[in-house]
């Protein structure tokens, strides 16, 4: 009897080494919410097994669906990394949506109205415009926060609506596709600018490579560079960082500028990799998804890759489920919400901590 107990605690110790409390609680939250999700499917669906098969198995069935997972994961990863930058520095950037749109729009404008350049230079200018657009747009909130101490949450929320309305207004009139199409969008971009698949054998859009590279680069910046250390120090304890002589305003500007740049880049990748044209409100609520990815990954840019791929998979599955059964794809959002409610409270981590403590105390006695 005694042996099994010590055996179990040994397994527990190994598990503890691999997963820390946070990771364990995240995994628990994911599994728990998936179970609830399946339960709900059984409640509303006449053909639950078909729905569950569509949700979990079919995304891996065809290469088209697998490539779909990656293209859905690309903006999730990029925006998750963007959110992690500001979260790590202790700020809330609720404006990823606006920065994403501004970046996408700036990139589209550069693609359409800059002409007569060699293709490689044109492509570089498109990405540059997107990055600069997102960055400058985020810096509005950053500058206001740094020098006037305005609430960055409110300002970024307002900027989202300003961006959406401004672009919608421009698209409805002056910048609309002149060929006379009824859709509210720009003309289609030149084929040579678009992101292609990696190769014929791997029909996955190159966007995912950009996302992975950005995630790795931001990881190294945040965790392996002096400047990144300063950012995180401010996020952990701002007063301590200030006494330590860190220029707080500079960290605000860096975190907002970087987050906006990544969000803007993500917009361009989405346009060039998926749509090929800017149409009005083409990715609503994607900014919020980015926040969730970051929360799920504990603000770690490398783990964001995993959470992004996981939700890309879930979203693809939900879409297949919508095609095959009567259940709408908003179902993925429901699972997302349950996860975030579980994680945002420290309930789970606290629960695991307490359990472990209880166990240790028992063993001592």
């Amino acid at each position: 009897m005694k042996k099994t107990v010590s055996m179990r605690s040994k397994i527990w110790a190994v598990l503890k080494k691999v997963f820390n409390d946070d990771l364990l609680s995240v995994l628990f939250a994911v599994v728990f919410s998936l179970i609830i999700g399946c339960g709900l499917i059984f409640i509303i669906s006449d053909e639950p097994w078909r729905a569950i098969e569509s949700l979990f198995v079919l995304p891996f069935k065809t290469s088209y669906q697998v490539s779909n997972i990656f293209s859905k994961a690309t903006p999730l990863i990029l925006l998750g990394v963007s959110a992690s930058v500001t979260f790590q520095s202790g700020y809330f950037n609720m404006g990823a949506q606006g920065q994403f749109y501004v970046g996408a729009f700036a990139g589209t404008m550069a693609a359409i109205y800059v002409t007569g350049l060699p293709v490689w230079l044109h492509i570089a200018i498109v990405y540059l415009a997107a990055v600069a657009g997102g960055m400058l747009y985020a810096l509005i909130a950053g500058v206001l926060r740094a020098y006037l101490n305005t609430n960055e949450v409110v300002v970024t929320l307002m900027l989202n609506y300003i961006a959406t309305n401004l672009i919608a207004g421009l698209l409805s009139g002056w910048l609309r596709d002149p060929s006379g199409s009824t859709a509210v969008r720009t003309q289609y971009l030149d084929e040579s600018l678009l992101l292609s698949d990696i190769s014929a054998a791997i029909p996955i859009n190159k966007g995912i490579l950009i996302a992975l590279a950005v995630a790795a680069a931001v990881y190294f910046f945040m965790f392996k560079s002096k400047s990144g250390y300063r950012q995180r120090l401010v996020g952990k304890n701002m007063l301590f960082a200030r006494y330590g002589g860190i220029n707080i305003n500079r960290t605000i500007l860096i975190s907002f500028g970087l987050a906006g740049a990544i969000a803007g880049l993500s917009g361009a990748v989405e346009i060039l990799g998926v749509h090929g044209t800017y149409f009005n409100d083409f990715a609503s609520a994607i900014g919020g998804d980015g926040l969730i990815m970051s929360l799920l990954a504990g603000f770690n840019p490398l783990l964001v890759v995993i959470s992004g791929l996981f939700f890309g998979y879930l979203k693809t599955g939900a879409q297949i489920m919508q095609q095959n059964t009567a259940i709408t794809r908003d179902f993925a959002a429901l699972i997302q919400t349950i996860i975030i409610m579980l994680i945002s409270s420290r309930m789970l981590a606290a629960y695991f901590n307490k359990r472990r403590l209880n166990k240790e105390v028992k063993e001592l006695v």
Partner: protein
Amino acid sequence: MFRQFFSISVFSVLLRQMTPVLLSALGCMFCYRAGTFNMGMEGYMLFSAFASISVNALTQSWVLGLLAGMAISILFALLHAFFVHKYKAHTIIVGFAINTLASALTIFLLQALYGSSGSYIPDTVDPIPTLTLPFLKSVPVLDGLLNGHSVVFWLAILLTIAAHITFKKTPYGMHIIAVGENCQAARSVGINDAAILYSTFVICGALSGIAGAFFSTGATKIFVRDMIAGLGFISIAVMNLGNGKPIGILFASLLYGASKTLSLQVQTLPNMTVPSQFIEMIPYVLTVIMLIVYALVEMRRKKAAS
């Protein structure tokens, strides 16, 4: 053209637009003054809109529908406060989660209860009534201006005045301000900060609940998925534009109503070169500008004090 803009029927559209925003901005204000940033109003209103039309269709009573909407909205506000207080979760993240939850769960319930993924149109609804004051009937301008508005509009005006009095005259209002300015100091003089937190969230939930019920059973008789469409965030703008004061919020929501009405009017005009979205944008731009102004004033005040 100007005749069209300033006619009396346009004015009543304006009041209809501003009513829910005024209510939820007032709710947001209570939390804001107590030092918590609540952005869950979007979700509260959506839940309330759904619950009130469902109960209304079942019972054919607008009062029960309104109460059900308020109850469900208060419930989620309490849940929000509980997560913030008990589990130290960040209020913005919880608010964000509640908004997502409201969107997903109402769509799910639409499907589970009514077998539709887009909208729910009950056969009969007992709509929230409009109010006609008999003694104004004979006054020519005031009759058109003030009569025939929803009960909820008048309720919102009364609640604005009540909120103003609460903050100016009552101990409860003072306690909220004290907790908002310095929670520790307030606690040290014996103010129960947890009670303030929960009570402000309940007030926010109740006000948003009324706004949500107005959406589905007052202004319309239909529930559409995501029908709040960002109004919770607009009320955050309105609250900030009004500098967190009831009377300021009243004027800010009037301004929102005016810009919304104007943009609706512009859409109907032929040969209009300014896109309606630019006019719809005005409250947001003004909010950012006013935040800057308030911040500058605050800085100057601090400098003068030191």
